[in-house]
């Protein structure tokens, strides 16, 4: 092997020596609007002997060394106008030429890296995908990523559980049926398998992608109802500092009897980030805090968080990325209200006993990306998610209350390559090791292994067929292992450049979490017993959709049908003498519905935008014959924003119909007035002004009213949602 390498080097040196370089073409590609680097743009060098293609690196750079007379360079990136630059524009000194790509406004292209595990235009993938970009995320920064998701068509959130098209109800934050990824890697806790929204670095999120429908064929366990990928931003070229701070206050409730004397109701948060790049290195570092006195008594929190990202270009074709985050929080142990007569005070009755919760979440991520030749992309990803919580001691000075420490080490390597001009292959291997130490779940570990492959075939122009499958092996402790085979099939057909039809089938599964399998404890008087026979939940999703993108508007419509089997729920078992709570596979269900989303841009500069989404879901429990618990049938979400002369105005509205069925066995019996629920109408509005908009140091001041109507509602039993709040947000960067 060593001799072989030496021979290759010798041959390369010979070729190098015998073929003098005529030109060195280097450039750095950035977005013309915000100057962020564009990674993955396709760069084609045309020379006397033909074409050579490369992709831009994470920092937007590319380079060619050619021995032939170069003619021009063509740049192509999804969502941007194709740009051709004559070769003589590039400097002879080898300095990279700055190239700014303009957005392709006419087509409203948006891209996804989640749907197919590679960069594609949303119009080209056979499944429904919604995206949210940084400005929209920042506008909701005070309230967290969960509030960003609440305005995506077809998505609702109850506490930390995300429901995509009826896939999830409310299971006390145990076992998410939607897989959350951060930068493409799983980001669920190892014990409860839940989403830690408060750990996500919202200040540094570039975009959020939501893929609707079962996605286990690429992502394995938990992608039962869909996949959410939170993509952090890349360090910008040059050195930049960004600051954002929000201060606000919750309004008093309209009813005197609900007011809680002495409740602070104020909130304040601040973030500062620094981004810098030099040569082959780029880094960003941010840190911040959140202090929220809460709109309810005993529901306050204090949080410190930090995020860092570092990229290093090893050579022309490979790069390394490292990132890390840490979030430390002290939160009141709110469970549910005292009653509807006192909804902003915590219950002090049976099963609501809970001390303050102290939690730590951390994530370390590493990625190696390489381009082999001009066409083969390969990467290796590793992340470690650490979560820990403790509750206050029952006695002053005594041992901690409930506690859990969980770690998940995830590994994935995949490769993408064109087998022929019309056949693109993506394959990979994943492995995950989970370990938990807890008084609730005891000490356990689990291993999840996966192998996937996906082919994307274009047999004729405008037709794309995607087929793939994944094999998973899951084992906890020494228990019998579980295996899953998850197929997928998708067809996308472009009728015209503006109109695409799509249809897809996907399989999903969710392996029971360690919390669901092994909880063995007496919690607030209830004995919870483990269930070692728990099986994986399974789903099958079908969808047919259509997407039309015109100059001023975009319309997406889909009909979908899903079946669910072996759904896991906590069940009160009372038939064997001493009653206890246990997680069991109890429900079989089917869900069908339709979803429509329209975006309208009245002006060519996209300064004004209106989006309206409606989703109808019929979630039918085939076991009981009733509607599935905690699932709304109707969701309507609207978003509008406009900007002129430095001013910006934005508004969001959502309507969610009332749950038709809910948990009467556990939640309602122990939560006074737990059956109280209403349809949800929430309107948020904001107005902002940017000072020094044309200068190098713009300062944006935004006044925001959340829940403008001061509408009172619950998303989960016994939990009043946030009342109206007023806030002032300051943002600047230089």
């Amino acid at each position, binding site marked *: 092997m060593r001799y072989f390498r030496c021979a290759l080097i010798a041959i390369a040196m010979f070729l190098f020596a015998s073929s003098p370089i005529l030109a060195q073409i280097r450039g750095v590609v950035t977005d013309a609007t915000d100057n962020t680097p564009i990674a993955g743009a396709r760069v084609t060098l045309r020379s006397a002997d033909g074409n050579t293609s490369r992709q831009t690196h994470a920092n937007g750079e590319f380079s060619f060394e050619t021995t032939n007379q170069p003619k021009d360079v063509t740049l192509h990136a999804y969502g941007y106008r194709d740009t051709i630059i004559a070769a003589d524009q590039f400097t002879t000194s080898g300095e990279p030429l700055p190239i700014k790509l303009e957005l392709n406004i006419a087509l409203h292209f948006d891209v996804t890296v989640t749907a197919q595990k590679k960069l594609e235009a949303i119009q080209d993938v056979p499944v429904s995908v919604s995206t949210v970009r940084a400005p929209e995320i920042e506008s909701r920064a005070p309230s967290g990523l969960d509030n960003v998701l609440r305005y995506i068509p077809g998505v609702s959130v109850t506490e930390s559980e995300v429901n995509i098209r009826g896939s999830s109800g409310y299971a006390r934050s145990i076992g998410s049926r939607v897989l959350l990824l951060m930068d493409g890697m799983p980001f669920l806790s190892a014990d409860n398998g839940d989403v830690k929204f408060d750990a996500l670095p919202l200040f540094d999120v570039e975009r959020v992608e939501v893929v609707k429908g079962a996605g286990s064929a690429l992502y394995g366990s938990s992608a039962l109802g869909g996949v959410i990928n939170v993509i952090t931003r890349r360090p910008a070229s040059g050195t930049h500092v960004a600051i954002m701070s929000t201060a606000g206050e919750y309004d008093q409730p*309209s*009813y005197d*009897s*609900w007011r809680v004397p002495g409740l602070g109701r104020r909130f304040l948060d601040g973030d500062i980030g620094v981004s810098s790049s030099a040569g082959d290195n780029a880094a960003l570092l941010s840190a911040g805090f959140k202090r929220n006195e809460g709109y309810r008594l005993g529901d306050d929190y204090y949080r410190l968080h930090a995020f860092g990202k570092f990229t290093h270009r090893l050579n022309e074709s490979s790069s390394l990325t490292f990132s890390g985050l840490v979030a430390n929080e002290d939160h009141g142990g709110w469970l549910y209200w*005292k*009653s*509807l*007569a*006192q*909804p902003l005070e915590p219950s*002090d*009755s*049976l099963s*609501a*006993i809970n001390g303050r919760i102290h939690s730590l979440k951390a994530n370390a991520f590493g990625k190696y990306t390489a381009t082999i030749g001009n066409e083969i992309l390969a990467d290796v990803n590793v992340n470690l998610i650490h979560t820990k919580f403790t509750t206050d001691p*029952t*006695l002053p000075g005594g041992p901690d209350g409930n506690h859990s420490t969980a770690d998940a080490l995830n590994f994935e390597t995949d490769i993408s390559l064109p087998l022929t001009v019309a056949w693109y292959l993506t394959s990979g291997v994943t492995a995950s090791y989970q370990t938990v130490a807890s008084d609730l779940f005891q000490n356990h570990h689990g291993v999840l292994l996966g192998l996937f492959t996906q082919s994307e075939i274009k047999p004729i122009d405008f037709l794309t067929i995607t087929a793939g499958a994944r094999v998973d092996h899951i084992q906890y402790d020494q228990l019998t292992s579980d295996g899953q085979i998850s197929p997928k099939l998708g067809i996308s057909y472009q009728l015209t450049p503006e109109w695409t039809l799509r249809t897809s089938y996907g399989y999903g599964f969710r392996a029971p979490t360690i919390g669901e399998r092994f909880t063995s404890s*007496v919690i*607030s*008087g*209830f*004995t919870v017993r483990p269930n070692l026979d728990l099986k994986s939940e399974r789903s099958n999703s079908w969808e047919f959709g259509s997407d039309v993108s015109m100059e001023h508007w975009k319309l997406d419509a889909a009909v979908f049908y899903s079946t669910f089997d072996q759904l896991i729920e906590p069940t009160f078992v*009372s038939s064997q003498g*001493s*009653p206890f709570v246990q997680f069991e596979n109890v429900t079989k269900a089917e869900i069908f519905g339709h979803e429509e989303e329209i975006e309208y841009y*009245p002006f060519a500069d996209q300064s*004004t935008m*209106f989006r309206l989404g409606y989703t109808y879901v019929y979630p039918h429990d085939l076991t009981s014959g009733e509607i599935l618990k905690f699932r709304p049938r109707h969701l*309507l979400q*609207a978003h*509008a924003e*406009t900007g002129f002369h430095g001013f910006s*105005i934005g*508004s969001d*509205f959502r*309507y969610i119909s009332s749950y038709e069925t809910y948990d009467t066995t556990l939640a309602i*019996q*122990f*939560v*006074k*007035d737990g059956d*109280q629920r*209403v349809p*949800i*109408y929430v*309107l948020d*509005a904001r107005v902002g002004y940017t000072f020094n908009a044309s200068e190098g140091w713009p300062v944006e001041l935004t006044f925001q009213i959340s829940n403008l*109507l*001061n*509408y*009172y*509602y*619950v998303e989960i039993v016994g939990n*009043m949602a946030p009342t109206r709040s007023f806030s002032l947000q300051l943002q600047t960067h230089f």
Partner: protein
Amino acid sequence: MFFVVFTSASLLSAGGCNKGLEPPPASQVASISGRVHFVSPWPAKASVHVLELVLVQPAAPFADSTLIKGLNTTVIPLASLNYLSGDTNYSYSGIKPGTYNYLGVAQLFDTNVYRDWRVVGFSHDARDSAIGYTIHAGDAITNADVYVNFDSLPRSPFTK
């Protein structure tokens, strides 16, 4: 103009003055307050899984599964009491009008929530008989004190 149309449509669809959930009418609920006195040493922590102040409609002390099945309907949990806590004031509003046979402190001494309950203190008169409460809408009952004695449990059944 466009924004105005959007906001107006949102407001209209939100049902105008509809505020969503609202408190139950004051005329339909009542309140009760008082103090829980602990007059004996505490037992071992292992035998105090839950200690709950409850207002109870059924006959004393508890029928099988009454406490669990009747929660919020015929048994009103007023407050949880921490292990080793001292004398504690309580105040609770939102009680539905009705006749309640007694006000007591219930201890879950083992893990069977259907079976392992006992009354360790109650609100009683000078003759050690339980005080019953007939609560009307809008009533505000005060000084409803309860005396807990783990060493001398109330006789069972105890009556007025």
